């Protein structure tokens, strides 16, 4: 694949690889819709050059299912809690939640909201996403 020197990761994912689950909400690092993981750390794909992460493991929302197709616990919990509203920010919210739970498997609700705070939800479904994080970490049943 031919990647231009100045090309952003979001551009490569969406336009070159057809991975459109990663959204562009602002393209300026101000919303979080493009959040992906690089070596398990959540970053804004709109504000990362593809060449900057060429030696890192990049995971998008499309890559979270288990090999047998099972949803990631965060995805399952977000469905259970009806976390998404319009859904445009959801992939980013999922990726930040996954990054959080890798680093801190049982966060408090306060820790969760700090960790998720780089993801705007314009619909205002924050309460529902936090419930989803708590459920995915086994703290809500």
């Amino acid at each position, binding site marked *: 694949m031919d990647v231009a020197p100045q090309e952003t990761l979001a551009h490569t994912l969406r336009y070159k690889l057809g991975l459109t689950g990663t959204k562009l909400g602002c393209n300026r690092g101000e919303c*979080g819709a493009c959040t992906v993981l690089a070596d398990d*750390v959540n970053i804004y794909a709109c504000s990362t*050059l593809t060449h900057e992460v060429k030696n890192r493991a990049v995971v998008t929302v499309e890559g979270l299912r288990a090999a047998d197709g099972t949803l990631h616990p965060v995805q399952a919990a977000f469905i259970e809690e009806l976390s998404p509203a319009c859904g445009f920010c959801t992939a980013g919210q999922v990726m930040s939640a996954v990054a959080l739970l890798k680093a801190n498997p049982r966060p408090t609700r306060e820790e969760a909201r700090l960790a998720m*705070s780089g993801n705007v939800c314009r619909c205002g479904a924050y309460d529902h996403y936090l419930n989803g994080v708590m459920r995915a970490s086994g703290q809500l049943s």
Partner: protein
Amino acid sequence: MSSHDNMPEMSLYQPVQVEDAIGIATELAGRGWLVGGGQDTYGWLKDRAKTADALIDLKGIESMRGIKETADGIEIGALVTLTEITRDPIIKERYSLLAQAAGRVASPQIRNVGTLAGNVSQDVRCWYYRRGLNCYRAGGNLCYADTPEGMNREHAIFNASRCVAVTPSDTGPALVALEAQMVIQNASGQRVVPAEDFFIGPNLDIRHTTILRPGDILTAVRIPAKWANATFYFEKVADRNAWDFALVSISAAMRVNNGVIEDSRIMVGAVQATPRRLTSVEQAIRGKPRNESTANSLGNLASSDANPLNYNHFKMPLMDNLVKRAVRGQA
């Protein structure tokens, strides 16, 4: 008024040795753009408000990574991310002021890639300037914000000199409070500059916020042991508690012995183009007990010589209040 979303065409260098990076930067001079985390880079370029021929990605340079102890404190590689700073056990233990400041920058994702060097080197956030208007700082000959009708709520109340933009950095004031030393390399070698002299106002150079010039690379930040384990106070007041830049921030380091303030460094962010040191406050509290009464005795000492614009008078009481909180030790 065109609005862009794509990065402009440019070349990319990814050196792995700092000497190579310096070589490239020197050769490209003003047409090269150093990238650490890139979080104050891509917006400028996408907006076409600034241009460059090439990006020089420094992230491959191992020598600019890591936090290590030195004979007199610690040395933080320029590429250390803000998240790494918030999690580093030594910084958290001895220099928690810096960890706190780094932890309030922007958002988690930005802290995950944004570097300490980038946070102190970022350009001002004046919205007129960011918009690409040809103001003084952009090389023109007027200021849109410093006018009777300018929308200048976030602008400077001190030391304006044609430009009224403020320093947006949360870590800058903390580093000056800690008497950090900035390690700068260029083709002629290495120099070490006190953080206080690293930041420069528009009276000295209206086009730059730091002393870095093309060919210079900030490679590390050294924090001396002088203020290790001191009494610290950090607070940032912003509109929103994520993303937003400070309306005013305070970074204070104090040596308190038996409840008495023996020495202090009190810095305020977002009130002028550089971190503002409050020497009058430092003098006023020296030898005084760290309590409510000392705090209240300061009155409006911190803001008394401010020159507010139309929409930013609030920064005066806000900085006075933050100074009081730092001195009395509680919000």
